[in-house]
């Protein structure tokens, strides 16, 4: 538990925040350094998204034709899988906070499982598009499609390492750190919310 505003909470507030964040308004989930990284990554992706949009509005017909090759249902399925993984990692944080470490571990493993489902689904989707003849160089839309989904995929792979650290922390009573569990969860949610926007831009918008 770390405070970034003013003089910081006293020992009583820290204990309360460890049990219930409702008890302390100034509870920063995880390490502030991770939040700085998350905001940096978020603004970097906003730059990617904006470049995509600038290119798209210059030739909307091409983007619409190529976008029609993607399966909207697969994009929605992947979104639901990542949202569910975010839910399970949020439950992991809550369980660890309440001292229910078996439940926290179960939810951490569930998050890993949902992440793997997303990974397999994404690889199969790429293979399917390449099989149909739509590769990175096919046209501008597919160049953005592969670039944005690959950048996101890279963050997903890092997410597996982060979740591994969370599991390692929860496994032994000697290592348990609520702050590190929350830090890992903050990273994983970032993988989720970046995908939510990629889904809207590549699959849904017209």
């Amino acid at each position, binding site marked *: 538990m770390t*405070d*970034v*505003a003013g003089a910081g909470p006293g020992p009583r507030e820290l204990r309360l925040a460890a049990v*219930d*964040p*409702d008890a*302390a*308004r*100034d*509870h*920063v*989930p995880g390490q502030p350094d991770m*939040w700085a990284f998350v*905001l940096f990554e*978020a*603004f970097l992706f*906003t730059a990617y*998204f*904006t470049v995509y*949009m*600038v290119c*798209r*509005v*210059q030739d*909307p*017909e091409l983007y*619409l034709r190529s*976008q*029609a090759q993607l399966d*909207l*249902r697969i994009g*929605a399925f992947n*979104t*639901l899988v990542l*949202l*569910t993984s*975010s*839910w399970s*990692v*949020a*439950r992991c*944080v*809550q369980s660890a906070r309440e001292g229910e470490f078996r439940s926290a571990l179960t939810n951490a493993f569930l998050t890993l499982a949902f992440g793997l489902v997303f990974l397999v689904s994404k690889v199969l989707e790429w293979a399917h598009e390449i099989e149909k003849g739509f590769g990175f160089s096919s046209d501008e839309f597919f160049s953005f499609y592969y670039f944005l989904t690959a950048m996101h995929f890279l963050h997903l792979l890092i997410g597996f390492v982060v979740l591994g650290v969370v599991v390692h922390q929860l496994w032994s009573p000697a290592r348990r750190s609520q702050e590190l569990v*929350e830090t890992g*969860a*903050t990273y994983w*949610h970032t993988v*989720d*919310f970046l995908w*939510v*926007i990629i*889904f*809207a*831009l590549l*699959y*849904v*918008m*017209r």
Partner: protein
Amino acid sequence: MIAASEKRLIAVWLALCAITIVSLWVGSLDGRVAPAASTAVTSGAIGIALLKVRIIFREFMEVRHAPVLLGRLTDLWVLVTAVCLLGTYWAGMAFSTG
């Protein structure tokens, strides 16, 4: 018995899934055979996505319990992303039809 915090997480997850289903419906409005550019569909898709992101920030990432500064920074990102994406799309569409 399910704790109030657990119930809240379930409600948030269900709401996010329901909003995603709405996105699926929005994206299917004109079929996939001959999709046409649509400012309404695009604005709806981006608006829905940013609403979902804000819910993830506040509920799953617990920003609603965080210092005001963190809440403002995450809201600023949502706002900047909305302005960049919607502004570019609206301006681009206005020039191409103008």
